[in-house]
């Protein structure tokens, strides 16, 4: 099946701005699903609100477009009732870590078999370019005309500490690497977090001297390095990308089934 069979062509061209990275993430996801050969009737994609959340409208899987920040809560409900389905939750940085921050850390803690894809464009694009918890110090946004003074989250460290069993980071520039990482994340039995740096040339780029999509893609190329590379020692400012955690831990649905079996056994006696 070609990856184009997975899209709802009637809704194209999509609403994202020219050069937006979310289209590239969508393509990466479809290629990963195609590579794994999953039947589209066995995939559920759940999203919240934001530019990134519009992704569910364009894929021909089972899709849920839910409320802001709560995509993981809805996905948890779907997974508990139908554990055989493959759950993918695309989220924006604000959706995942500001509005849905608590849902995110608790989904990590439970280690439920869901793949959370965080499309990090460091801005709230849909509402006009307000700064997000991922913008970082010294970045400009429509609500930070004199630059931001807030520290940013490190998604990888946060997910790692909260207990996710698969944590990775990649960028839209490294699309081949993104496809491989998404394949690993979807195959992982447990909660998988993939942070993907995505470009927002319209709001983040224009205000931060990266005016074109290609400037932003080159920024990702120049400012990231694979985990453990020697370049990082010389230039500690670089952001590492790759798979940080890939471990097997007890999965929530399986543990839940065990508890159900245990409870039934006790009532039979």
């Amino acid at each position, binding site marked *: 099946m070609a990856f184009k069979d997975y899209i709802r062509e009637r809704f194209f*061209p999509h609403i994202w701005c*020219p050069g*937006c990275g979310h*289209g590239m993430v969508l*393509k990466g996801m479809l290629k990963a699903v195609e590579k794994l050969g999953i039947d589209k009737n066995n995939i559920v994609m759940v999203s919240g609100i934001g530019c990134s959340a519009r992704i569910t409208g364009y894929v021909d899987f089972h899709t849920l477009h839910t409320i802001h920040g709560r995509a993981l809560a809805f996905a948890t409900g779907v997974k508990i009732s139908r554990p055989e389905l493959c759950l993918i939750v695309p989220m924006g940085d604000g959706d995942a870590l500001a509005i849905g921050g608590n849902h995110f850390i608790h989904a990590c803690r439970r280690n439920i078999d869901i793949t959370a894809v965080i499309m990090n464009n460091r801005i709230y694009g849909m509402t006009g370019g307000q700064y997000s918890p991922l913008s970082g110090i010294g970045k400009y946004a429509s609500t930070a005309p004199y630059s931001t003074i807030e520290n940013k989250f490190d998604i990888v460290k946060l997910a790692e500490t909260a207990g996710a069993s698969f944590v990775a980071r990649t960028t839209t520039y490294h699309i*081949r690497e993104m496809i491989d990482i998404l394949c690993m994340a979807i195959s992982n039995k447990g909660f998988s977090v993939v942070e993907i740096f995505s470009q927002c*040339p319209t709001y983040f780029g224009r205000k931060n001297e990266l005016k074109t*999509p*290609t400037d932003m*893609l080159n920024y990702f190329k120049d400012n990231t390095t694979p985990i453990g590379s020697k370049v990082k020692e010389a230039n500690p400012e670089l952001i590492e990308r790759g798979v940080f955690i890939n471990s097997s831990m007890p999965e929530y649905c399986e543990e839940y089934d065990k508890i159900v079996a245990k409870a039934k056994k006790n009532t039979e006696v």
Partner: protein
Amino acid sequence: MAKKVLKEHIINKDWCKGCGICVFFCPKNVLELDKEGKVFASRPKDCICCKQCELMCPDFAIEIEVQ
């Protein structure tokens, strides 16, 4: 591996938003933007079928057909 030969650049102009990502990433400088800001293959003979444009296009607007 046999060398790939280009059949055609399939460009969906209705979906192209003219962001220029494909033009920038083409290693052989095959693509250009036209007057309307949409992509077209100006030097198709130079195409090596690496499919970088097809992979990078955020709008699903370009495809490479190989013979």
